[in-house]
């Protein structure tokens, strides 16, 4: 898989994220290059398989619970209490991630006046950002985030 500088652009081509000039150049290149066409087909197939991965719906009762907690300032106190406590990594990491998710969620809702919508992308995104920064164990991926939150929610309600 070396020698084709176009390969670096094929994913962006699939995602329609190339500039018009880059796209025209690839459009002209592809008919005459079987290697690139095969690579393009393989990348499309990979994207299709990933896109078929099931995503959990964000439960509305959890959303309203998060809103209430945000209003009450619980997220911030949880975060700072956890951060300041020594050796509390396992406890403060989820609290920190949720606090950031709630912050983004709150801002998003205020900006868009869309209280009835469920902005799972932002929650997942907040989680992913924390994953990328190494604050959350690597075996959790964004698509698990709502399930993790839901589990914590039920756990708290069961207590």
């Amino acid at each position, binding site marked *: *898989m070396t020698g084709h500088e176009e*390969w*670096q*652009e*094929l*994913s*962006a081509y699939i*995602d329609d*994220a190339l500039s018009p000039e880059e796209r025209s150049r690839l459009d002209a290149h592809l008919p005459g290059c079987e290697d690139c066409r095969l690579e393009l087909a*393989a*990348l499309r197939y*990979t*994207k299709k*398989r*990933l*896109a*078929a*991965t*099931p*995503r959990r719906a964000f439960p509305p009762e959890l959303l309203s619970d998060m809103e209430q907690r945000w209003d009450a300032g619980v997220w911030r106190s949880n975060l700072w209490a956890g951060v300041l406590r020594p050796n509390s990594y396992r406890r403060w990491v989820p609290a920190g991630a949720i606090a950031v998710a709630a912050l983004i969620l709150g801002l998003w809702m205020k900006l868009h006046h869309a209280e009835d919508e469920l902005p*799972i*992308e932002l929650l*997942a*995104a*907040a989680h*992913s*950002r924390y*994953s*990328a920064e*190494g604050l959350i164990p*690597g*075996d959790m*991926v*964004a*698509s698990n985030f709502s399930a993790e939150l839901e589990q914590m929610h039920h756990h708290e309600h069961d207590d």
Partner: protein
Amino acid sequence: LDAPAATESGSWDEILQGTDWDPADFKLQQEEDQMIQQALNTLPVTFRTAVVLCDIEGLSYERISEIMVCPIGTVRSRVHQGRVLMRKAFEEIGNRGKTQ
């Protein structure tokens, strides 16, 4: 004996007619989901994050660049590299399954 068992609301054939649920398909889908999860978990976190946000969460490169705090060119590179690694991981997991 050949007649389908009757229930209060009709025979099983009638109940199941028109539904496209197939236990074999369900099992295959479960295996496929597990395979994707396994493959994702083999990726370094930056590539995994880019791929998950792009292909599973469906976010644009612009949004991903805001979230990951990096230029769009870096997102483009991470998404591409992530997909290439995913493909290799699929192949490895598939080959492992064949030898077992």
